[in-house]
């Protein structure tokens, strides 16, 4: 008999059994990918190749091919960096914090969200690398490595150095967490491959699963590790963007020098991360026919988080405006006047519309429950979050203290090309992940179908499989 809760919608619909779960998710790894996947990969690779050309041009000729100038030393590069890092927040938040809060609805989305995190952090990391004038030295000089130059050491006062630590720690922990979650599922695929007689796949996934056998003790340790990693990741979710925000908050530039940046940046990061997760999952669930696992209920819950974080961000924007006026500091006041009224006002108002006004539409249940509306709004939110970083970085710099240096920033094809490059990288990686890795955590989802969607009349069969 199907067990249904009177107060909650089932997390997995369609009366899926444990076997269905294994089958539905593993078959994308086993079967030939659909034509849409090939098409998407081809497009991603083309975009990636074009982006790579732009990256190589920058490395060959110098940062000068970008549109930066003596006044605006950072623009698209760091905007994109912060944007991608922000996006990379959702995965860990979902898998770590929601795990600690025992939110079971996270189970069908955490795998993809974590993958997204990892790829987003990789994309983000390309910008601080490429934006260096001398990448060939900078990539290791920024690390506190022992060297033959006497007391020459990295500058621990610099927020950029904190960034290096924050991002690399976050990346490492996220990667380990994600991979450990993948191990039982790799074993499932291996087992199926053995049955199907595909020896190559069996060997590859056996190696990937580190020879997982699924003994009770292994499961016990596995869960312990997951919990420990979740505990480790939780502060990281807060620390990464806090530290990224300190790149700006510790400076003296009006519009950057703001104490509310850490919470404001973290909220913004979760906001944009969830929007990105939605964008990706809404496509994935259709392409791989996973509507029963990623249900409208998931989408609604995520939309609620978007309302909450979007509203926090909105309050932060208004607080900034208020304080700039209340402080009575001429430069602070002008920096925000200039955002609202200056030559980049269009960017500011794009940001306000996309980030503050548009998520409020989710108060309406119909919109919150609409796939199309969610998809559109998730993209709008990410556009808005890109503008937020652009507004903070460029409009603060382009008119700071000394009016003689005031100038505008105009992006070149290479500024845009670098951004395009990360899209190519991100989607290529995500598509490869979707094809070769189980996009939903089978092991975890199985634990919720057990209670939620036993098929009527097949209970004994299910019991058998579970006990097997």
């Amino acid at each position, binding site marked *: 008999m199907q067990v249904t809760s009177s107060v909650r919608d089932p997390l997995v619909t369609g009366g899926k059994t444990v076997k269905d779960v294994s089958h539905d998710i593993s078959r994308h790894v086993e079967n030939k990918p659909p034509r849409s996947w090939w098409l998407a990969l081809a497009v991603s690779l083309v975009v990636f190749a074009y982006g790579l050309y732009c990256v190589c041009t920058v490395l060959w000729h110098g940062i000068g091919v970008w549109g930066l100038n003596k006044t605006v030393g950072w623009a698209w590069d760091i905007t994109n960096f912060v944007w991608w890092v922000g996006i990379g927040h959702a995965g860990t938040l979902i898998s770590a914090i929601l795990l600690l809060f025992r939110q079971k609805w996270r189970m069908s989305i955490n795998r993809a969200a974590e993958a997204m995190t990892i790829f987003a952090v990789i994309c983000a990391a390309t910008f601080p690398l490429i934006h260096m004038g*001398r990448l060939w030295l900078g990539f290791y000089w920024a690390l506190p490595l022992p060297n033959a130059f006497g007391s020459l050491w990295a500058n621990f*006062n610099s927020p950029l150095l904190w960034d290096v630590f924050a991002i690399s720690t976050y990346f490492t922990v996220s990667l380990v967490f994600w991979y450990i979650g993948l191990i039982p599922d790799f074993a499932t695929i291996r087992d199926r491959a053995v049955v199907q007689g595909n020896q190559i796949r069996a060997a590859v996934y056996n190696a990937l699963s580190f020879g997982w056998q699924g003994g009770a003790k292994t499961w016990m340790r596995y869960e312990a590790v997951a919990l420990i990693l979740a505990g480790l990741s939780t502060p990281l979710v807060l620390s990464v963007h806090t530290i990224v925000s300190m*790149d700006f908050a510790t400076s*003296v530039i009006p519009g950057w020098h703001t104490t509310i940046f850490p919470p404001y940046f973290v909220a913004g990061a979760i906001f944009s991360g969830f929007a990105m997760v939605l964008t990706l999952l809404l496509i994935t669930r259709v392409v791989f026919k996973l509507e029963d696992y990623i249900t409208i209920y998931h989408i609604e819950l995520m939309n609620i988080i978007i309302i909450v974080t979007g509203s926090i961000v909105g309050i932060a924007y208004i607080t900034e405006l208020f304080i700039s006026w209340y402080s009575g500091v001429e430069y602070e006041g002008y920096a925000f006047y200039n955002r609202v009224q200056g030559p980049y006002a269009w960017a500011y108002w794009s940001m306000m519309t996309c980030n503050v006004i548009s998520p409020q539409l989710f108060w309406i249940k119909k919109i919150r429950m609409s796939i199309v509306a969610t998809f559109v709004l998730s993209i709008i939110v990410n556009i808005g979050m890109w503008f937020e970083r652009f507004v903070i970085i460029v409009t603060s710099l382009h008119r700071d203290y000394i009016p003689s240096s005031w100038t505008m920033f105009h992006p070149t094809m290479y500024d845009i090309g670098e951004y395009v490059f990360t899209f190519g990288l991100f989607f290529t990686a995500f598509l490869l992940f979707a094809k070769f890795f189980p996009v939903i955590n089978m092991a975890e989802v199985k634990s919720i179908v057990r209670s939620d969607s036993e098929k009527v009349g097949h209970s004994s069969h299910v019991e058998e499989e579970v006990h097997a």
Partner: protein
Amino acid sequence: MEESKKVYWKGIEQLANNPEFVKNAHHEFAQPGPEEDLGHSRRDFLKMMGFGVSAVALAACEAPIRKAIPYVNKPVDIDPSLPNYYASSYVNGGDYCSIVVKTREGRPIKIEGNALSNVTKGGVSAQVEASVLSLYDNARLRGPKVGKDKISWEDLDKQVIAKLNEISGKGGQIRIVSNTILSPSTKAAIEKFKATYASTQHIQYDQTSSYGIVKANEESFGAAVVPSYDFSKAKVIVSVAADFIGSWISPIEFTKQYALTREVTEDKRDMSRHYQFESILSITGANADYRTQIKPSEEGAVVIQLYNLLAGKAGRPTVSGGVEKANIAKAAEELWTNRGNALVVAGSNDKAIQVVVNAINDILGSYGTTIDLNTPVNFRQGDDVAMSNFVNELEAGKIGAVIFYNCNPVYDFPAGDKIAAALKNVELSVATSYKEDETGTLAKYMAPDHHFLEAWNDAEPKKNFFSLGQPTITPIFKSRAAQESLLVWSNEPKADYFEFVKNNWRTWFYKDQTFDFQSFWDKCLYDGVYELPATAAAAVTFAGNVGAAADAIASNYKAGAWELVIYESGNIGNGSQANNPLLQELPDPITKATWDHYVTVAPKDAKDIDFSESVTKYATITFNGKTVKLPMLVQPGQTPGTIGIPVGYGRTKAGKVADNIGQNVYPFVALVNGSLSYSATVTFTPTTETYQIAQTQTHNTYMGRETVVQETLLSEYKDKNWDRDFHPSVATWTDPEHKVAPGEISLWKGHEYNNHHWGMAIDLNTCTGCAACVVACNVENNVALVGREEVINRREMHWLRIDRYYSSDAPADDWRGIEVAAENPDVVFQPMLCQHCNNAPCETVCPVAATTHSTEGLNQMTYNRCIGTRYCANNCPYKVRRFNWFKYHDNRQFETANPAMNSDLGKMVLNPDVTVRSRGVMEKCSFCVQRIQAGKLTAKKERRPLKDGEVVTACAAACSTGAIVFGDINNPESKVSKLLKIRPMDEKHPHRIDKIADNPRAYQVLEEIGVKPNIWYLTKVRNKDAATA
């Protein structure tokens, strides 16, 4: 186990163990085999093979080719790495400066002013500073040429002499055409030439003529000269369109004199009052206290008005004409009150206007006080009429031979096109310019002169003020002194110009000397100058006809719909050095435009013709059938209805740098009433074609930010007992009611600089914005030039820039309105460079500690450590850090704009003490740390403390007005400490970073953000009445 006593042997020989066996026992074979007979062992083979392979491998690697060639014998006076200094003279036509040239290993690399000269008094200009790069110009002639072919000097001389003899034999006319010649020896050489070829006439002309002044003085006083002016004695200065700081007659000298009157200290509580009446906003007008916008056609009327007002007071007859303009009556009143301490000058080249000006100065008693007719200056000897007659003769085919002595009239004389056309029919034409210019390419022979840094010369800029020019490098190419050429062609037996100059000086000056001539000569050469005692200024009698002049003015000037002013810009000047990229990239002090030619338009007119600052459009300007098309530049302060175009652009044969930038507007200068007129009524038609001008500053007002620019009125300043207007202060937590100066509170105790603490003072009052310091900094510090495109991208590399701000009519809290400059704005110039903050925000943010603080208060940049995150530049409140966006050296892309780093010839100008920065690193002002180190080393070697003034930054050295003062603020006796009245905040710790400047005018830019700069600015004081402020 018991040890076995058994012994085994390999053979009977071992058992016998005879000496023969022992000797060969360690060899592989008892008897040497045939392969070992060669005397090489296997190991030898391996050794040799190893050596051979590595030698071949090493040889295959390309060894770096170093083109430095060491001295075989060390010259007596050259020590590698130690600079030598030579006094010399910069002479470019009528422009003159007494200089000291710094050479390193035989290469001139920097020019500074010569303080021993009483003419220029150590001052320099941007053109003078930049001229060292012209020495290494790739467009220079490599040797003499006939047509397009090379020729040897011997052949050239033979052919030229033969032709000259032929022409003079048949009675043909010979002309030597030149700009003003300051050199008495050159004139003597020309006299020798004239003596040989009797039909020779020497004609001088100037790009910017003062012929009208000469004629006016001839009429007024019977002396056809340009007098000496002394602005330093003037309490009231009225200038009618004379840009005496920028380009008029002797700007370096005048700037220095003018600055003396603009200094304000607690001891010297007064300053001159300066009225300017002009059409374009000149650098002089920008420094004026009262500036009135007039049209060029009104210049005469303004002068007449002033004359009439003063004549009324003096009881002289008034004349007809005159026009009512703001500030004329006030100026007249004050001139009259300050008789004997007043000076009126006019920029016009019209004799009639200058006669009236002479009359005014006569009324004011300026002759003998601020004007000295007995010491005429030689800067402008051009004769407009003679030159025009020459062109007519040339056209008529009456000239047999013409020698263009270091001049380029095809380009810079208004009738240049006529000269160009007529030159084809002239039998012999010779050009002596050191470059193949517009005139040279049309001349039959090019007999290139040396660059002035390679040549001996002398000069007499003013009567009785002489100076010498000496070579600072062996001529780089096969050039020859032009004077020597003239002497050779005059068949002089000993045609050595050096001997010629020396002999002249022996004859002229070595008369009543008590020591031998060689000592006298050495002394003159060492000093660079030889000055005779000044003759006393005698009283003069004015004999000019003011009435006739007024009638001439009334009939000659008619207002036009669009009146054009042709002027010299502050960077390119008259265009003779246009191929110098240092000048092309130097922002014009007013427009801040680089690499571009433009027509300045009043904001009001720009509005009329639907034109906004962000989108520049072209306009066509037509005069006398000649049309040029130039982009418009909106210029606050420009009189509505007038437009201004700088000369110096539109070169076609100057070289890669200058060619095809803009249009040549010399043809717009016309001969009106016997002298060249630099204004005209023209047709002006804006077009819709858009263009972007490369400007280094596009935001023109300082937004009412009093912590950036502080200015006050002299009267207010006096009233407030020498306290400036604005003091930033902050409330503290402990006592919120009592606000303190931001410098007084800190989280840190503050480090100590136990030795030196370098600091700088910049006086906004005496800074005229001339930008000589910018070029000096470029040359001293090997600052890359980046070209027009990169300036448009806002990436010029200047370590020191001059911010130019206009006032706005809007109130300070109207943030939108205050962005717009006033119609006739007050102007302030603010040199901006690294402030060497004691709590530098750039230092904390660098992830690799590439920018750090020295123990002497310098904010230092370690290029080798920089990885180029640009975080420091973002976090710099002053935006003085410059990033190497590209590789600016050895890069084809920057070959044209930056020859000093991209050609072997150009690289000779680089300062070997300063690294050429690579791509991807940050750079900025270092307070000329190489000079500081050199000075400290000298002091250390001599076992004495460093003296104040021994170390001077390049900018401070180049500042003609002394507006920039650099020194040790730990030393209470240093000039900068005394000027700023520096005292330590904590008497017990005099060497701590916290110092207070008690000079009431001293302030620090952005003091309240607490970065504690080491540069103080002195408040700009305007000598205006409070009521009209």
